């Protein structure tokens, strides 16, 4: 009798161990929607990973897994598609999660809502609006109107064109090779701009701002902080005209004033330091 119990327990244990990875990976999902070239997409993925890329087809494709506490919903018309995950059980306060790869037409208009999401969007030429509380946002090679809002999530934008609006709070914002009309605002999150041709405005309260090697010909970049340090690293041969002011004292570092033909760089802080550095030749 005893050996039967032991055998049964061992078999049950083996079964649980064997199926655990499958359960952890979630339930597989694959869906397709016919879509117009500029389809409006709304994606709700409160928790988990969402990778969006473009393809030259008249459809939207979703592939990945849905977590144990969530269930898939979706539908729409070729012009409007909405899908996402919602709690499997009414009253469940856990965030439903999923791990999806989504392919959309290049001109699609995306609206993405997350709470604790890991978002990556690549190659979109249409509009992008993405909202999250925490997690991470990475956007690459977008060329349309892009709006990214978070509270705690770091935001990285690479090789973007068009219009770019970012609102963060604690999360750091990193912009690399961004050639866009820019509006960036954070509270304590740092903002770093590397290369590109950013034309617009960056504002933080306590967050430090670093601008390195921007090409501002025919552009104007305005940086404003309350107490955050502003560090400007420019090529002395192509330094934009700089207007710097802070009530913390005179700007320090390399005595560069720049030329208007290379654009304008305005840095203003209430009590943060302003530091100007020359990039190595």
């Amino acid at each position, binding site marked *: 009798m005893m050996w039967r119990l032991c055998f049964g327990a061992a078999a049950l244990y083996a079964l649980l161990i064997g199926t655990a990875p499958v359960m952890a990976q979630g339930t597989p999902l694959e869906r397709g*929607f016919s879509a117009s070239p500029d389809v409006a997409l709304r994606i709700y993925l409160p928790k988990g990973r969402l990778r969006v890329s473009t393809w030259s087809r008249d459809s939207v494709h979703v592939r990945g897994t849905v977590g144990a506490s969530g*269930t*898939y*919903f*979706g539908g729409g018309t070729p012009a409007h598609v*909405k899908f996402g995950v919602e709690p499997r059980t009414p009253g469940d306060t856990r965030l439903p999660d999923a791990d999806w790869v989504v392919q959309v037409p290049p001109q699609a208009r995306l609206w993405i809502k997350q709470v604790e999401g890991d978002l990556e969007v690549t190659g979109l030429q249409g509009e992008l609006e993405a909202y999250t509380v*925490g997690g991470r946002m990475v956007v690459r090679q977008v060329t349309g109107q892009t709006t990214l809002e978070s509270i705690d999530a770091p935001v990285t934008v690479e090789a973007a064109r068009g219009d770019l609006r970012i*609102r963060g709070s*604690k999360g750091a914002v990193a912009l690399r090779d961004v050639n866009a009309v820019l509006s960036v605002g954070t509270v304590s999150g740092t903002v770093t701009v590397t290369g590109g041709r950013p034309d617009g405005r960056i504002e933080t309260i306590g967050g430090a701002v670093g601008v390195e090697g921007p090409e501002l010909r025919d552009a104007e970049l305005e940086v404003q902080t*309350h107490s955050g340090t502003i560090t400007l690293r420019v090529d002395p041969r192509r330094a934009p005209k700089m207007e710097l002011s802070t009530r913390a004292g005179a700007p320090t570092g390399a005595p560069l004033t720049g030329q208007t033909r290379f654009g304008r760089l305005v840095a203003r802080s209430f009590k943060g330091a302003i530091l100007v550095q020359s990039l190595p030749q």
Partner: protein
Amino acid sequence: MTQHTSHSANPRPAGAACDVVSSQLQAYLAGTLSPEESARLEWHAASCEVCEQELDAASTRPVAFSPALPPSLRGSTLDAVQTHRRGAAWYTRWRTREGIGLGLAAAAVLVIAVSVRDRGAAGGDRPAGAETTVHAPEAGEQNFSHEVVLMAGAQAATEFSALDAALAELEVALTVTPDDADLRRFRSTIRTRRDELEQRVRNAAL
């Protein structure tokens, strides 16, 4: 074209007149007008009190049934119905015991096939064709909404403190130099950031 006398002074797009509204009203309610025609009609109704009332009244009326078919169309329609009935005669033949048995077997195979497909592709808890049904998690519908807003508020608490501290500093500075344009600009920026953050916290779960 007739024009009601109670038109407002708003300019009107070409072709938008009261008789046009009357003639297109049923098509508008049926949703068969083009977007441009619909927009023109709505625009006119918005600027014409009489047409607006007519539109409101028509919107609340039950949709009228189609008038009787003309004789020529009626004949061809009845022919089509007869053809459809002849095509459906196989169903009558299958209403035998063998037919019912085979039909049930086919239905069982279909149900199993659909079930296997759904389990493999979508978690197995949704019927086939679930894409057509959208469970939209609109505002307040999701069960975790309250928790999300609390979480967002907690994440943003230090940020609100930083914003308030910065605002207090500027208020003090402005008492000394109330006409300082730079200080006012700094304060305006902080107020904007604070409003935006409040909005983001409120909308975190929407």
